[in-house]
């Protein structure tokens, strides 16, 4: 195989959920959210940098094709290359963003091993995102003995060298038991849910704020409105509103509750069976901009007021035959420390003054 590309940087995301010593996708994660977390890490800090194309390897839910461009906020072409170690090599081979000056492409590989009969993962889950440029003479990494998609992707990630790759997340695992993970796998998605009804077009309309934390800054009074809705919440001004992304890793908890078993809204009945009593926090994302988020990836549901949180894209609840996705709060500094201590330089998780 001849490949003329340069492997720029890589980001790897390993879920924190652990079953019998193996890191597996958490109860609110799937291939789409695993990939989203790796992708956000690769392209952090959130700016205007976006790839010319996105090459996918893995078994993604249908949302991926439309979902990743929404997450990136741009109409990025998405090319699916199937699943398996060979598909990883094929995706890299096809990824050279030839023609576009200085353009880069991203290969996003998610290995979420097939679920066994009981709905539980048969092996470790991992998401790897690698940014590549055409102006190089790199080749594929040594063939090795990569029998899994994830292992092959990690070998490609290790070959990325400009600058040093962001290493594997070293966050402490959060153990989960089989019944809860099984409950997560068993949440019915096809049924029309008995939930507060948010029609699909309204949900899609909210995605810039829901997934990318887009707020609007008022040119008249300076107030921030989140979620963005085309009018200033303070003075009502509708002209000259500037889109402004709120930091995904810079929030402070200002209120915190735990929803007891059986007290959840009906659309969370399935997710709650997997999550157990879950936390919900009101988070100050930036001065004057607050958001409400379900808590995930925390040792316990209750996050103290004043603690710092980041947000990650996760499954929220099923409605009308599909999962609805949105950001959830995760306690910091776990991820932040992983990104920084790795010597990732400017490519680590961004820091935001609190």
């Amino acid at each position: 195989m001849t490949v003329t590309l340069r492997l720029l940087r890589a980001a790897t995301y390993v879920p924190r959920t652990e079953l019998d010593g193996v890191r597996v996708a958490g109860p609110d994660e799937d291939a789409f959210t695993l990939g989203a977390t790796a992708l956000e890490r690769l392209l952090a800090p959130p700016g205007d940098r976006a790839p010319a194309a996105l090459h996918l390897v893995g078994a993604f839910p249908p949302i991926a094709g439309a979902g990743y461009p929404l997450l990136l906020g741009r109409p990025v072409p998405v090319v699916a290359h199937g699943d398996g170690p060979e598909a990883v090599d094929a995706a890299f081979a096809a990824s050279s963003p030839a023609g576009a000056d200085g353009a880069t492409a991203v290969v996003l590989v998610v290995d979420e091993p097939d679920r066994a009969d009981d709905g539980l993962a048969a092996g470790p889950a991992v998401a790897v995102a690698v940014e590549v440029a055409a102006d190089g003479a790199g080749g594929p990494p040594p063939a090795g003995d990569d029998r899994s998609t994830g292992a092959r992707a990690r070998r490609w990630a290790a070959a990325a060298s400009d600058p040093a790759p962001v290493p594997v997340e070293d966050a402490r695992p959060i153990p989960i038991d089989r019944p809860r993970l099984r409950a997560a796998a068993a949440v019915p998605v096809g049924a029309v849910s008995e939930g507060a009804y948010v029609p699909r077009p309204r949900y899609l309309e909210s995605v810039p704020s829901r997934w990318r934390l887009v707020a609007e800054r008022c040119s008249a009074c300076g107030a921030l409105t989140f979620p963005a809705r085309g009018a200033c919440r303070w003075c009502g001004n509708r002209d000259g509103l500037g889109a402004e992304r709120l930091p995904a890793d810079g929030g402070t908890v200002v209120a915190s509750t735990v929803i007891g078993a059986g007290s959840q809204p009906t659309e969370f009945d399935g997710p709650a069976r997997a999550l157990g009593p879950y936390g919900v926090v009101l988070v100050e994302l930036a001065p004057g901009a607050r958001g409400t988020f379900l808590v995930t990836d925390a040792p316990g549901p209750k996050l103290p007021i004043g603690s710092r949180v980041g947000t990650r894209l996760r499954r929220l609840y099923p409605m009308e035959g599909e999962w609805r996705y949105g950001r959830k709060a995760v306690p910091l500094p776990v991820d932040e420390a992983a990104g920084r201590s790795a010597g990732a330089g400017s490519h680590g998780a961004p820091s935001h003054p609190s």
Partner: protein
Amino acid sequence: MGRRATIVGAGHTRFGAVEDGPRALLRTAVDRAVASVDRGVGRGTIDEGFLATLGFGGGQIGNSAAVLADEAGVPGLAVSRVENACASGGFALRAGARAIESGARELVLVAGVEKMTDVASARRRYWLGVSGDTEWERAAGLTFAGVYGLLASAYLNAHPEAAEALVAVAVKAHAMGARNPNAHFQRAVDPDDVRRAPRVADPLGLYDCCPVSDGAAAVLLAPEETAHRYTDTPVRIDGLGAATDHLAIQERDEFPGFAASRRAAEAAFRHAPWDRAQLSFAELHDCFTIAELLALEDLGLAGPGAAAQLTLAGATERTGAIPVNPDGGLKAKGHPLGATGVSQAHEVFLQLRAAAGARQVPGAERALAHNVGGAGATATVTLFARG
């Protein structure tokens, strides 16, 4: 001061899990309101109606105003249905009083009803929370208890001593409910019952939450100058305040207090011929115990951060300096959503006419009723005085 509205009759059903459906509940409340008019009233003289209901559960979700005309026995009556979540009753009362004040109407029927306990439990949990911000807050897994849990967590973080005040609010509500034959809960509870109850939405437990109740209430409004045709002791409406706030608490600058409550109180007192110091008692919207503490401060009945101290000192007891919810409040009397605001006016009618029996506030002359929709997105504050 222009034309003022008075209450000349009021009726109330038992609140709780009852067999009657919404039509029968409305009929009973209106019949009792008509029967309560001291010198009698002909139904045919009612010239407008307002119905407060959320349509909980989805039964007859639209156009239910016609049902009030049927059940009031006034065929063809002009009726508007008012839906402002749990504040529907307060807003319907406001609309009725305005119709009188404007000179357009001479006898107005305001009724509120909700039938909640016959709804299948999954559907009930679906409906509990549809009046919050469904696109964001609900998508974060919040019901109303969850939203109030967030509010309580922030308040307790700033005022740790308020944890015991929440217990005191629940104990007081149950003690007062025990004196109200219409109340959903008519038994006292021990503080330890409250403290040990399972958590619904931390820090709120089961006894911090109002129950799911059926019920209806109705009042008859007439202008002050003709009130004597109906009774020697009308109850005058001296102030009508109402306001809104952002639907989602995440968009509010005032937190955890409710700006809508504060604004409604300011509006109500602005034109009233008396002020807070002259209040005999208050009906506050205590859907959760924390809501009573927030309301005391939002309405200016307690200084900022002083609601817990006031409560723990016993000032809000029936015989205290500023009694709150002598009928048991939403917490013990029950909270049939659309009926609640009208039920508050019914209690004021009884209290200011010294007809509240075992729960009478001694010497009650002036009262305030505070009705909140959702978690403070809509609010009314209404002021009453003995006519």
